[in-house]
């Protein structure tokens, strides 16, 4: 049976290899000249709204006749109401960011709560059901805060940016109305899902409860997608005529160029973020636990939360690359402002924070191996993973150009460092991030194996195959990064990043498959000691949540800031006194203040969940009832 399975697997492998060689000939290949032509025409389009317009206007013609939209207003400083002592930009910035942080959390939590509930139902392990309930309980308070901040943001926009709000409401009136109604649906479904948790248990009732969970996710995602459309329309407005006037319909406005790239990026990022925040919740409860059983429970919850965060963190850089590539495709000017202009240094901070995310996630996993009696077999190898992660981290945040004085520039002999300069360009970063991902996955693999002993006869061969997989994959990543990154032109450099990314994914997928077969029916070394975790490991979970929050704030600022002096790129100019890009230090300070406010509010939410479980019996306070 085993031989037969192995033959089938090997045959499938060989067929897959053959198919990969044949694939380009079977599919309509895009020739370099065609690709260049398409790219340049798309990229040129938004540089002047007039150039973008004819094609979309022609497409929109049959449905555009019904409504005529006015051109975007030309505003002056007098059109922006001021309230004494309030900086309108900072106020709206902070409120919008806080709304987004909480919004991301409450959209994400039902996604993995649903999955955890399904796992609980399939395995009939009640612990999963209890954990899912605990997560949704935390998100209920966050949901109220999201709504309050959303209301505050609407008031802020109406008060400080009335003409912009009016213009967007005119274009998106249908979707804004749908958004308001969907909010009712979201509230109703969420409350049924939460308050009906213990009522809808067992048999068909559980299925009904799961259906509400699915519905909750569907409504939540729709809400996010609608709001994303308003944001992305401001970056990449669609359905414009030759004069830059909107003449399309609601769907054309929603389905603008950057809508789907943002949707994908935010869905993945929200899951990672939601996982990190509930991880912080588990750490908070773990550190404040008085009993061993409570510590064990929250250790287990923290492990699951970290698993959710890492699972979504692994594909997140790819979603980010896709979004950035689409920004470049939409407007080269926007792309260069994003990564080659004033905002480039924010990406260095981003690199440091992403590095911190990977290091803290790995550190937590390594600490988690202490729960197992069998971890000693893998512990000596951890230091090598740590060395690779640190080297990849250093390459990842090495800047291309440095901020230098004239004398420093003279000493250096130019803007680039003699040795480190080569590490500042994207091929080095791509190689580094693929190493970060692969070795983070390796940490997880070690963690998973720490307490198990494989019983299959081919365990040695399976291990050898996995080592071969990692070796071949990492060599491929290096060749693609070095050869295509430094000895070819830009087109090859960018193109080579795709097989690099796919190599990482192939390593992960094949390794998971081998592992699943190899550890089927494996023996446990000993029962896991849940709760046997250091206090430091819990601070790693806090670091994960804080890094994510700060990262989202900074990159959100960059995404919004690349519109520069436009409310809506190229068609609606910002006429306010704040129509300039603030200094990076100033922007980072605003985001940092926002992060502190958000974390304070999150701790308040955690504290509320703690006091809700307390019940004080006030003896002698209440009148005795007859």
């Amino acid at each position, binding site marked *: 049976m085993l031989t037969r399975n192995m033959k089938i697997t090997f045959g499938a492998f060989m067929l897959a*290899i053959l198919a990969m060689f044949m694939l380009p000939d079977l599919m309509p290949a*895009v020739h370099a*000249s065609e690709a260049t032509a398409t790219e340049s025409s798309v990229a040129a389009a938004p540089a002047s709204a007039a150039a973008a317009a004819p094609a979309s206007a022609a497409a929109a013609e049959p449905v555009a006749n019904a409504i005529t939209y006015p051109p975007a207003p030309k505003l002056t400083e007098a059109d922006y109401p001021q309230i004494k002592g309030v900086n309108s930009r900072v106020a709206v910035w902070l409120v919008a960011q806080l709304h987004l942080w909480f919004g991301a959390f409450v959209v994400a939590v039902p996604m993995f709560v649903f999955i955890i509930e399904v796992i609980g139902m399939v395995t009939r392990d009640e612990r999963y059901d209890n954990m899912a309930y605990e997560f949704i309980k935390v998100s209920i308070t966050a949901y109220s805060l999201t709504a309050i901040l959303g209301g505050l943001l609407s008031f802020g926009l109406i008060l400080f940016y009335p003409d912009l709000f009016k213009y967007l409401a005119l274009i998106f009136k249908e979707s804004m109305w749908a958004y308001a109604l969907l909010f009712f649906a979201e509230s109703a479904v969420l409350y049924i899902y939460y308050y009906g948790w213990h009522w809808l248990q067992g048999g068909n009732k559980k299925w009904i409860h799961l259906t509400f969970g699915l519905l909750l996710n569907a409504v939540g995602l729709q809400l996010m997608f609608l709001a994303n459309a308003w944001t992305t329309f401001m970056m990449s407005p669609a359905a414009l005529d030759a004069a830059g006037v909107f003449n399309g319909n609601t769907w054309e406005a929603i389905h603008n160029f950057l809508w789907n790239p943002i949707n994908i990026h935010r869905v993945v990022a929200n899951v990672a973020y939601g996982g990190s925040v509930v991880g912080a919740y588990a750490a908070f409860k773990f550190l404040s636990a008085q009993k061993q059983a409570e510590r064990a429970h929250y250790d287990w919850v923290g492990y699951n939360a970290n698993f959710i965060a890492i699972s979504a963190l692994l594909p997140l850089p790819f979603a980010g690359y896709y979004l950035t590539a689409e920004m470049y495709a939409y407007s080269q000017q926007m792309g260069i402002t994003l990564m080659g202009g004033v905002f480039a240094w924010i990406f260095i901070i981003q690199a440091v924070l992403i590095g911190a995310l990977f290091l803290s996630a790995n550190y937590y996993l390594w600490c988690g191996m202490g729960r197992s009696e069998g971890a000693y077999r893998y512990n000596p190898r951890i230091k090598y993973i740590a060395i690779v992660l640190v080297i990849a981290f250093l390459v990842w945040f090495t800047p291309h150009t440095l901020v230098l004085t004239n004398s420093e520039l003279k000493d250096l002999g130019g803007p680039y460092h003699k040795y480190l300069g080569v590490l500042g360009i994207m091929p080095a970063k791509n190689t580094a991030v693929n190493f970060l991902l692969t070795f983070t996955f390796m940490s997880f693999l070690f963690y998973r194996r720490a307490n198990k002993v494989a019983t299959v006869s081919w365990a040695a061969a399976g291990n050898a195959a996995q080592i071969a997989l990692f070796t071949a994959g990492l060599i491929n990543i290096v060749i693609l990064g070095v050869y*295509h990154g430094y000895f070819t032109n830009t087109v*090859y450099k960018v193109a080579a990043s795709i097989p690099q990314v796919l190599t990482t994914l*192939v390593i992960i997928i094949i390794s998971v498959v081998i592992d699943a077969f190899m550890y089927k029916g494996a023996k446990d070394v000993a029962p896991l000691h849940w709760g046997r975790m250091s206090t430091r490991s819990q601070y790693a979970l806090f670091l994960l949540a804080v890094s994510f929050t700060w990262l989202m704030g900074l990159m959100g600022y960059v995404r919004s800031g690349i519109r520069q002096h436009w409310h809506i790129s190229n068609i609606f100019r910002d006429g306010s006194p704040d129509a300039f890009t603030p200094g990076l230090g100033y922007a980072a300070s605003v985001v940092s203040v926002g992060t502190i406010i958000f974390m304070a509010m999150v701790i308040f939410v955690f504290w509320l969940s703690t006091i809700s479980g307390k019940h004080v019996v006030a003896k002698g306070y209440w009148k005795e009832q007859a």
Partner: protein
Amino acid sequence: MKAYFLPFIGAFVVFCLVFLALDFSMMKLQGLTLIYQH
């Protein structure tokens, strides 16, 4: 040693082919070649 070495060599050759095929097809799908051509 034999239990590790032979499967390693076999698997290494297979995975090298897998990644080569991946690189080849991805570059070709983008209208490029595996080896840089001026």
